[in-house]
């Protein structure tokens, strides 16, 4: 229909299809799902809706809270004291049993890992990034955090202590980065744009203002 040449691969997939063969976990999930539906326990739509709900969180939720904390010391105090209530103040529904905010200071940088699986504050950050779930990060973050951070491009001087938080049980962690220099006078919305997902995990620093 056209002599347009498609050799520039515009429509090539960005990665190989990975759903041609089921993993053991996927096979088990599909079998369980079939049983729940056939047994009348849940409908396919209820299962789909729950998965959609699970993926509703996004790093913007945590960024909004931290930006508010940067401009409002009273809110910051409330967020450090009770992160779930502070989320609710901004209309964010946190489904985690317990959320804790840890503040970076000039003396201490904080980072989070779940060495046992992939515990993560999904309500405030969405689904965890692939690196967070990887065995490499989970084993190395507790063993050589400074090296891991350097690989992320974050060089913490030895004068600053590093605290690694293993999110191994019931609490979920939000790191509050320090407000960057040169952001005086920026609006809450502009500040929120500087707060990336990885900076809330402690694997990055906020974006420097232009």
């Amino acid at each position, binding site marked *: 229909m056209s002599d347009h040449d498609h050799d520039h691969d515009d429509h090539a997939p960005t990665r190989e299809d990975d759903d041609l063969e089921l993993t053991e976990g996927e096979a088990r999930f599909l079998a369980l799902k079939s049983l729940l539906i056939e047994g009348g326990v849940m409908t396919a739509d209820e299962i789909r809706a729950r998965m959609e709900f699970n993926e509703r969180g996004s790093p913007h939720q945590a960024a909004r809270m931290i930006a508010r904390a940067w401009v409002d010391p009273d809110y910051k105090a409330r967020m450090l004291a009770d992160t779930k209530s502070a989320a609710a103040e901004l209309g964010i529904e946190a489904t985690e049993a317990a959320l804790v905010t840890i503040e970076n200071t000039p003396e201490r940088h904080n980072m989070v890992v779940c060495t046992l699986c992939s515990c993560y504050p999904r309500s405030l950050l969405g689904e965890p990034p692939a690196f967070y779930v990887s065995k490499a990060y989970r084993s190395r973050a*507790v063993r050589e*955090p400074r*090296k891991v951070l350097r690989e992320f491009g974050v060089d913490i001087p030895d004068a600053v*202590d*590093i*605290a*690694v*938080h*293993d999110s191994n049980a*019931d609490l979920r962690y939000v790191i509050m980065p320090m407000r960057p220099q040169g952001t005086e006078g920026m609006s809450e919305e502009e500040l929120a744009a500087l707060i990336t997902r990885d900076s809330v995990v402690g694997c990055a620093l906020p974006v420097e203002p232009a």
Partner: protein
Amino acid sequence: MSEAEPSYAVGDRVRILDIGKPGHVRTPTYIRHKVGTIERFCGMFENPEDKAYGRWGLPPIPLYRVQLKQDDIWPDYDGAPGDVLEIEIYDHWLAPAGETT
């Protein structure tokens, strides 16, 4: 000893035990036998070691955050002397640091 009350206060020195319990436990191997300090009492939580197998996990058990020096976890740790690790440990995986495991 009842497990329904917190047994440790902030600042107490504690040893993380290896109680040899199989299955879904939340105390990673790398931290067992190590000594640290109670950083905070987190509250009472249903026991995940029971909940993982369809039980209720009741009564709730105390959970703490324990702070350990990295140098006390890894003999060859490469970092600053003030580097620490903080981890959540349930009451029955702890003993006063003076006691042997």
